[in-house]
């Protein structure tokens, strides 16, 4: 176990990378089909979250708000206003489930979501996600756990060929799709919770905006207890897996720390081979050969280059491992929030911080991998930037990126190498 640092006595964030818990909860709700996300807070919380994700995904983001007013903030325990909100949309919209989560305002004033949800005669799944605690990963995980705890029936009649995939919040929609496809290739019936692979993947269907059109169905969630195998991805999903095992202690759980890079994918596939007794398909094997080739072809550009990665812990620790496989030197990992995955960081320095910290170390770096806001820092210091994380603005297609498994790993190495070549013209 490695130690990592948190920001010491810094009272002001200047270039934040931390996203709030309600944002994570929002995304998690958007991974459930027919759901409706209801932020319990002032009107701005939902509006600003909506703007943020709309710009990132270039897609409608349906969030409703309880629109807590000054009076309500002071006098209402939340029950009245949540009930009013629900009543107001029900005639026109009948979601399969309401994903209700708190914000800084309502958690601070102590609204009891459980009591509120129970008092309303409609399927509501609730999670306490104040924005003065945790971050994107924990908000997502708390809402995911809520679905397990509040919807799933206890484990019975376990089927070894049924698998529940629990991706961490930073897996892109098409990455979740890719993992599902891989599991299906191994003969498994796969359900993902949350599942943003067809809800936030940037497609143009109809009536997409008022209820979540993709994702895992409530009926599926109810029946998840029969999954014999639970695969959680990322350390941030361990509490969700624990919630599952509390209700279905017989299930087999494996936690996949990451899915980026040859070794992580090898490990994952090796586990699937042992669990299922099956060989991977020829396409998977062939992509491994492509991945190997990309490692060789890219090593000259990535090798000995120094990287700073800023973002969500599960993602950047995973990414750092993939870059290290190509010989990259990870100067620093700057995580938005603390996370258990940071303990396996391969970086020279691992800390919880913001882009100001990245800028402080920028001289020891050739390539900055971070969200949109890192671009200005990279430009100012003449460094190469590769865009990853939330938000990616002024570029389109962020949700289509695949960096995981052999195919994604191949494309990732190619992209990074080409960015380096382009950034150091010769």
């Amino acid at each position, binding site marked *: 176990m490695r130690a990592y640092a948190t920001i010491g006595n*810094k009272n002001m964030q200047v270039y934040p990378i931390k996203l709030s818990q309600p944002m994570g909860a929002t995304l998690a709700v958007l991974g459930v089909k027919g759901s409706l996300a209801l932020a319990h807070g*002032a009107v701005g919380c939902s509006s600003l979250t909506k703007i*943020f994700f*709309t710009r990132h995904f*270039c897609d409608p983001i349906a969030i*409703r*708000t309880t*629109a807590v007013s000054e009076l309500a903030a002071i006098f209402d325990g939340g029950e009245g206003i949540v009930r009013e909100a629900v*009543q107001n949309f029900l005639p026109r919209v009948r979601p399969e489930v309401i994903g209700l989560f708190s914000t800084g305002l309502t958690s601070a004033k102590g609204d009891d979501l459980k009591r509120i949800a129970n008092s309303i005669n409609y399927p509501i799944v609730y999670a306490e996600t104040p924005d003065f605690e945790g971050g994107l990963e924990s908000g997502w995980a708390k809402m995911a756990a809520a679905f397990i705890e509040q919807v799933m029936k206890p484990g019975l009649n376990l089927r070894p060929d049924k698998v529940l995939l629990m991706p961490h919040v930073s897996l892109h929609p098409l990455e979740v799709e890719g993992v599902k496809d891989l599991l299906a290739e191994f003969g498994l019936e796969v359900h993902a919770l949350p599942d943003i692979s067809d809800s936030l993947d940037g497609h143009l*269907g109809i009536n997409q905006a008022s209820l979540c059109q993709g994702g895992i169905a409530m009926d599926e969630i109810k029946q998840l207890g029969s999954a014999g195998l639970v695969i959680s991805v990322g350390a941030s999903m361990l509490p969700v897996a624990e919630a599952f095992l509390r209700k279905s202690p017989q299930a087999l759980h494996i936690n996949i720390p990451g899915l980026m890079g040859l070794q992580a994918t090898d490990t994952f596939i090796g586990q699937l081979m042992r669990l299922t007794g099956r060989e991977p398909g020829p396409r998977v094997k062939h992509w491994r050969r492509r991945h190997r080739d990309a490692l060789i072809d890219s090593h000259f550009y990535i090798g000995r280059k120094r990287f700073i990665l800023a973002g969500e812990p599960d993602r950047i620790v995973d990414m750092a491992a993939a870059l290290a496989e190509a010989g990259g030197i990870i100067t620093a990992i700057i995580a938005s929030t603390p996370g258990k995955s940071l303990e396996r960081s391969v970086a020279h320095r691992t800390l919880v911080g913001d882009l100001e910290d990245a800028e402080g170390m920028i001289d020891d770096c050739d390539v900055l991998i971070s969200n949109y806001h890192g671009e200005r820092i990279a430009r100012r210091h003449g460094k190469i930037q590769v865009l990853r994380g939330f938000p990616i603005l002024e570029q389109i297609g962020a949700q289509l990126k695949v960096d995981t498994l052999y195919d994604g790993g191949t494309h990732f190495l190619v992209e990074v190498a080409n960015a380096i070549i382009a950034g150091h013209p010769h």
Partner: protein
Amino acid sequence: MKEKIKKIMEKYPAKVFKNRKEHVLVVNKCEAPQMIMADARTIPGIITERGCTYAGCKGVVVGPLKDTVAITHGPIGCGYYSWLTRRNRARNNEGEGYNFLTYCFSTDMQEKDIIFGGENKLKQAIGEAVEIFKPRSIMICATCPVGLIGDDINAVANWAEKEFDTQVIAFSCEGYKGVSQSAGHHIANNGLFKHVIGTGDEPVGEYSVNILGEYNIGGDGWEIERLLKTVGYHIISIMSGDGSVERLRNAHKAHLNLVQCHRSTNYTAELLRAQYGTDWLKINFLGIESTVQSLRDIAKYFGDRKLIDRTEALIAEELAIIQPEMEKYRKLCQGKTAALFVGGSRANHFQGPFKELGMETVLAGFEFAHRDDYEGREVIPFIKENADNKNIENIVVGPDRERYRLVLSREKYEQLNKEMSLNYFKGMIKIMDDGSIVVDDINHYEIESFMKLLKPDVFGSGIKEKYVIHKMGTLSKQLHSYDYSGPFAGFRGAVIFARDVAMGLTTPAWRLIKPKWKTGPTLEGDFIREVV
């Protein structure tokens, strides 16, 4: 039409129905004056497009001031969200040096701050800001939990001002106050008027003006500045696009205030008039006709022959440049229709530019406007106070003994007021054709319903609605951020706007999406059996 609207509204529960129907009207000159409900609390559970008081204060008005450190006191999300969310462009000009817009200053409140109070953290954050950035002023913007747990940000500001010998201004703009970002505008106006405006004493040139309510989205402000400077005006300050606190300190010395966005800055315009005697003029630089009118009105206010001549010369010159291209785009757009749902003034301002492309605006509404923005300032005395708006401080000031002065004589004022509307805004409804629809605080359901009913060819809105519209197979133009394009203001901006609209309307993408799934097999080999 009224029947159809009623059908849409009837889907609401009774209480909501009662509420929402007051926010919708069909323009009918015979019924004038028509009344609309506005600036009312959003109904809980609706997918609203509104922001909050913090967003209006920090995001809209205070945010673009580039030479101040605006610290968000609250959880990280609030600050992060409002970080470069709007496309206020800014540059370091004239040796002003500071440009803090690329930073996102936040105290990142944690649970312990909620429990034990966050004042100490805020103090230390201010200390760090002073140490690292050495700003000439600091602004503190409060978020929801701050008010709830009772952090006294005014006390912190006073303490810090003495401790660090730097001006520190606190804005109690907690998100739950008021009904939308509009309350935030008011709070920001009050704070800037009390603590900034009037604190400077730089000499100003003749024909000095402030531009109020211009946020330099996509460079609009720069284009307006270019025009005004060409004619010969001295621009003291812009509130607040590419704006500066240090320039704003001298705003009271202007001879005339130009108000682009009435909603967000009418407070300051009125306060300046009351305390310093400065008249204000509602101008509008979006659209060619409005730009011509605005330029002529300003020149006429000052009455200087040279200004008037230069104005006409400028207008002739600019029109000559743009007309051929405008004509080209007009041909592509002619006969199409637009719906507009934007902010507190843009749904009004953009009707002209669409009209100049031969496009009718069939629906328009604001996100956070008040009744005066719809009906004209004459209704202000009749607007009822409610629980939400009465808790926003309303400053009342009288003439400043030393600095009050009137530019126009009583006679001149009376005369001019016949030719243009001084210190007055007539609102949006009066410019709209009969039969067009006005919807205040439109929500997701109503957007969908009115889209089906009116089938506009383009929907001008904000980012939040953009993709909802697109998923319906209709072009959406962001009239807040201009879709990373712009400027749209002035003559040259009008061409860019026309080009963008024409491009969007004529892109083959719409044809490829829409008809195939509806009309069945037509072209051989078309992939027509997909179920969407």
